[in-house]
């Protein structure tokens, strides 16, 4: 109020004409609903003008799994854990008799002669050649626990279970969706 009174007094002293004009209604108008529609209009413009380079680049399944595990565990352990998990699980899946039976007799003989390490090496070198869905199915269907690989990393199953449980509890639905 004091601010307006000061201005009123100042204007009356400086220019009675301008003081009188100030009392008149704002002559400028806007289209009806202009301010209500402005935020939506502006957000639409911002989305349309967003730089193309900011679009997310689709990562491979292996990269996303490694990232997921990195977010759950310390980086050094996570990388080793992810690699061993993927290779062992995928390798054992491909060595299962029911999978070998689906190949030709020649291929069956070849695969049967391969060690887990050799299969794992092959998968590592040619990971992009595998369909993402096949690898996910392989991991899920294998039913192989990771316990066997843990002693090499100085961990036991309880450590990992505790870590995973805690990390998953801290994730929200959106974090989980973003992984897949």
């Amino acid at each position, binding site marked *: 109020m004091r*601010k*307006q009174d*000061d*201005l009123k007094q100042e*204007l009356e002293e*400086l*220019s009675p*004409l*301008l003081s009188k*004009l*100030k009392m*008149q209604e*704002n*002559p*400028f*108008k*806007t*289209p009806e609903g*202009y*301010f209500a529609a*402005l*935020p939506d*209009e*502006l*957000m639409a*413009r*911002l989305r349309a*003008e967003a730089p193309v380079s900011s679009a997310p680049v689709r990562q491979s399944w292996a990269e996303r799994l490694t990232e997921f595990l990195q977010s759950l565990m310390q980086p050094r352990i996570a990388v080793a854990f992810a690699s061993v998990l993927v290779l062992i699980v995928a390798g054992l899946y491909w060595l299962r008799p029911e999978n070998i039976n689906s190949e030709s007799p020649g291929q069956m003989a070849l695969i049967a002669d391969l060690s887990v390490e050799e299969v794992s090496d092959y998968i590592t070198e040619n990971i992009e050649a595998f369909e993402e869905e096949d690898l996910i199915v392989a991991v899920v269907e294998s039913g192989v626990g990771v316990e066997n690989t843990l002693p090499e990393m100085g961990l036991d199953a309880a450590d990992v279970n505790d870590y995973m449980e805690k990390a998953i509890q801290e994730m929200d639905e*959106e974090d989980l969706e*973003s992984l897949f």
Partner: protein
Amino acid sequence: MKDDRQSERGFRMLMQKYQERLYWHIRRMVTDHEDANDVLQNCLIKIFRNIRQFEGKSQLYTWLYRIASNEAISFLAQKKRQQTASIDDDGSHLVNKLQADIYFDGTEIQAQLQAAIAGLPEKQKQVFHLRYFEEMNYNDMSEMLGTSVGALKASFHHAVKKVESYLSGVQID
């Protein structure tokens, strides 16, 4: 994605709070609604993209006001370059334009007031807008424009006298 949604929510809140003040500040400078809308949208886009550069050293509105003022001044300078010199000479062009504008519902003297303000030097125009229309006190204005209170009072005084003189000289039907 989550960050984007948070940014959008925050920006919508900021718009709800300041869009009308910024619009009227710009509108009084550029007078035309379509021009004001263009300038305001460009200004808000700049604010959205640079909001992280706001350092909190001044009030948020002061920072927003500076962006809006700069945007409007640039727009007016660009527009002036495109117009012929004769158009701006006596302010009659602006008066005619306002009287034909569907978003201007004022009397002739209100249109003449806009023409008088448009003829002021840039700094006086800014001070006049802030004091006369936005009723800002001199201390806030001093922080916003980086000018002493005494200089601002003198500037407003000169601006008022020039506007009054202009209005006294025009014939109102």
